């Protein structure tokens, strides 16, 4: 088998340790890289071979958990989703995500993101509370209804959209693209009846009207979610509700699940009856 050629790439990593100093500095590491190697692989290499004190978050290594968001060559990326080769530079600069407080090195505090996410009530809210608590039937939803918000469910809460957003950079109270996109996702869900509660927040001084459609959030999102689109559609929903142009939205009806389901398969017979039988046999 042909050996993969190795290329040395210099990694400049912004280091910060509040226990030692309030100032940040760049540390330089030379990493032998091969084709297909990601920035996260390089960081793991540094941690295992060059400097074990380097702090960064990682978990799934396949762009699902949203842990390894960081500023790579001045652009927010997921480190596991960025191959070193595609950067086409001999030096790779890695910094923590901007617009979020830094805890240590490349680890940022994501609690502002989660707090704002919680504020928009990211769950189904129904008027028929007893049905929610003790469901008697299913909430029917057509594939078209699902399609209307499906892409916004792919958000992994990595914070990359917030770090790319120019409004979040200047206004720390701004709800941000992540929370507003989730606000739209739940308000559009045909099973949901909580738009009145969420619209109060979206219509506030720190809400949707501060977005000036730079589109940086959608450009940066590693999951292909388009928060800028969600924000524009949410603006349209808010104006339509305020001017009563769309009228009252109908909630999805309850559908009784089919009574005659397929018969259950009988429980399989044990190949060995029990311990006693087995011992006797």
């Amino acid at each position: 088998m042909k050996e993969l050629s190795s290329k040395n790439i210099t990694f400049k990593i912004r280091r910060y340790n509040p226990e030692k100093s309030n100032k940040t500095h760049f540390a330089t590491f030379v990493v032998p890289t091969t084709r297909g190697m990601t920035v996260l692989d390089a960081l793991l290499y540094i941690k295992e071979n060059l400097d074990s004190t380097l702090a960064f978050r990682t978990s799934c290594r396949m762009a699902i958990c949203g842990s390894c968001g960081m500023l790579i060559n001045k652009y927010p990326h997921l480190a596991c989703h960025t191959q070193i080769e595609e950067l086409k530079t001999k030096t790779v600069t890695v910094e923590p995500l901007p617009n979020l407080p830094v805890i240590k090195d490349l680890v940022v505090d994501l609690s502002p993101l989660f707090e704002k996410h919680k504020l928009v009530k990211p769950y189904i809210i129904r008027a028929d509370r007893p049905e929610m608590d003790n469901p008697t039937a299913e909430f029917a939803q057509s594939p078209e209804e699902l399609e209307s918000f499906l892409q916004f469910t792919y958000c992994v809460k990595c914070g990359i959209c917030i770090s790319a957003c120019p409004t979040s950079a200047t206004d720390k109270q701004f709800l941000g693209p992540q929370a507003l996109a989730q606000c739209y996702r739940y308000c559009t869900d045909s099973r949901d009846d909580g738009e009145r509660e969420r619209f109060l927040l979206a219509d506030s001084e720190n809400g949707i009207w501060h977005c000036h459609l730079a589109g940086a959030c959608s450009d940066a999102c590693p999951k292909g979610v388009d928060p800028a689109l969600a924000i524009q559609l949410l603006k349209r929903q808010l104006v339509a509700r305020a001017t009563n142009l769309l009228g009252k939205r109908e909630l999805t009806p309850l559908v009784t699940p089919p009574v005659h389901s397929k018969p259950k398969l009988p429980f399989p017979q044990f190949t060995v009856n029990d311990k006693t039988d087995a011992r006797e046999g």
Partner: protein
Amino acid sequence: MKNAYLWLAQLVTGILVAVTLGIHMVWMHLDNILSALGIDANEPTSWSSMIQRSRDIVWATLYIALLAFVLYHALYGLRNILFELVQSRGIRRAVTWGILAFGILAFAWGTYVPVILLIK
């Protein structure tokens, strides 16, 4: 839903600015094309023509409306930018009142001449 109305008004005034400013620009700068179409703009940039237009109720209304639309559109945008820079609720309220006062003053100042010309 107060902010929804304010934002909608900015969208509407944006369109109205494009229409009213478009009329103004065409009349002021494309008089050769207008005369080829049989419309006499009567040297639109001259002093006498400007005074004549200000005495005309349709033109005066158009200019006053243009001023109102531009002021709302621009000052609402400025308020949004300033709100990004200040987080304090009190300062934000002061910004709103300051911008409102400036808008009213600018509107009064801008409409003073056409109103006087219309009355006299």
